[in-house]
């Protein structure tokens, strides 16, 4: 079985900071993985590597067994179309309708003309498909302007856009950072259930270790750009968790 995502010795350096250091990670099809760690640990960078939005300074990233760096632009578009990324800041177009934001998820598979048509006249079966995402919870808002929605509703529009891609993998980046605890639990549960039903590979970055422990069979702890642990949550010792979230002390990074 080819891994959905495979990172080998991946380092990502920015001019003033090293975001990831020699990370090895393999995620198999249908797996559900939570990536946890304090802010600045490199969680977002790790997810961005997986759809080619970030490029490794050294090491290789492969999606479906194919190295991203060796893909043609066309092939990269195809790969990206099959990966649903949910940004922490959502990145929706506020003054488009909900339906338009959701159908934008299909862009990777549309021609230029088809894209314009989909924007101006959303196809009927797109409307139907979005309606079927009843559980994502937006049908009654389909024709509302996106900026009229609450934060939680917008969050669901962003998830719907990613699902509308018909992806093989879902990469929600801190999906619960802006919703209240009860909704956070609902949302994580929804993501896990939908991924399981559709057989999607799920890689979520989470701030909240408790949610990661409750819903994911595999938890990857990230600290200072290195993988601290990569195990089922039941085997995690309290000491490991404390160390992961321990506040920076002098000489910590030396």
């Amino acid at each position, binding site marked *: 079985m080819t891994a959905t995502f495979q990172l080998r010795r991946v380092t990502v350096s920015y001019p003033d900071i090293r975001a990831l250091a020699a990370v090895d990670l393999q995620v198999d099809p249908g797996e559900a993985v939570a990536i946890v760690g304090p802010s600045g640990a490199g969680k977002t960078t790790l997810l961005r590597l997986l759809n080619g939005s970030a490029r490794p300074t050294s090491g290789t990233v492969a999606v479906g067994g194919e190295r991203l760096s060796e893909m043609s632009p066309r092939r990269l578009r195809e790969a*990206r179309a099959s990966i649903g990324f949910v940004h922490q800041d959502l*990145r*929706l177009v506020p*003054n488009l309708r909900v339906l338009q934001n959701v159908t934008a998820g299909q862009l990777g598979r549309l021609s*230029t003309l088809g894209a314009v048509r989909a924007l101006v006249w959303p196809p009927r079966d797109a409307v139907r498909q979005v309606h079927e995402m009843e559980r994502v919870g937006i049908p009654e808002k389909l024709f509302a302007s996106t900026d009229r929605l609450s934060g939680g509703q917008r969050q669901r529009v962003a998830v719907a856009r990613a699902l509308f891609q018909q992806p093989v993998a879902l990469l929600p980046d801190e999906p619960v950072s802006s919703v209240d605890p009860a909704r956070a639990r609902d949302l994580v549960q929804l993501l896990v259930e939908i991924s399981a039903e559709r057989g999607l590979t799920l890689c979520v970055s989470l701030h909240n270790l408790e949610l990661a422990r409750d819903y994911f069979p595999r938890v990857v702890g990230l600290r200072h750009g290195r993988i601290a642990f990569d195990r089922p949550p039941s085997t995690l010792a309290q000491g490991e968790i404390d160390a992961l979230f321990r506040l920076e002390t002098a000489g910590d990074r030396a």
Partner: protein
Amino acid sequence: MTAKTPSFSIGPRGWVLLSLLASAVWASVTLDLDVRRLVPTEGGWSVAAEFLARAVSPALTYEAAVVPAGTQPLLVKATEAARMTLAIAAAAMSLALVAGGTLGLCASTFWWRGTVRGVRRRFPFVVAYAGLRILIAVMRSVHELFWAVLLLAVFGLGNLTAVVAIAIPYTGVLAKVFSELIDEAPRDAGDALDGLGASRFQAFIFGVLPRALPDMGAYAFYRFECALRSSAILGFFGFPTLGYYVTASFENLHYGEVWSYLYVLFVLIALVDWWSGQLRRRLVA
């Protein structure tokens, strides 16, 4: 505690204020401006008084003692002039919107950002970009009255001459402002669409352009209002717009007629303003 040495640094804001002040002083000295010259002469007072007095009593019929037979009634003529003013402005604006919109989209930095794939093509891109910017600058640095003088010499007096004279500088201004509005629009959604496999063009159409469109629309409406004024003013050159009749009446000292034409222009601009307000409300809602 060490004593602080007094600092005379005025900071960037100070420099802006200082240079504004300096340019004002330089200009007034160069022009030898003297406020006392704003006091009108005795003849000036009477012209002003006479002219302003007619503001409350605009003419409803011609003021000339003899009106040639077959002349249209004044109000019919004013309405006809308003119709021509509107038509020339609308035609010019349509041209400018298509041309300026196209140039503006092309001149947006969204297309010119160095991408990993675009590295090899970078040099010709820079040349094309600079050429585009220069073209836009040339179009808008020459006023429509200048273009009118030039085009009159080439094509003679005709409606198309007036339309093109307005359309050229308006294309330049729209292109510049549109490209800047697009550049200022947040790129986050466009980047997200790029990340889900959209082409550059698709990411632009779906992710970036919609965020700039409301401002682009508002600005286009404002420019349409400006086009109406420009169209009226072009009448000074003999085009059959309101300005033509305003100068003719003014030269004949028929101030009542001047006010009639001016009021028609006010109404026209107020109507366009109301219409654009309605349209915008409907688009935003």
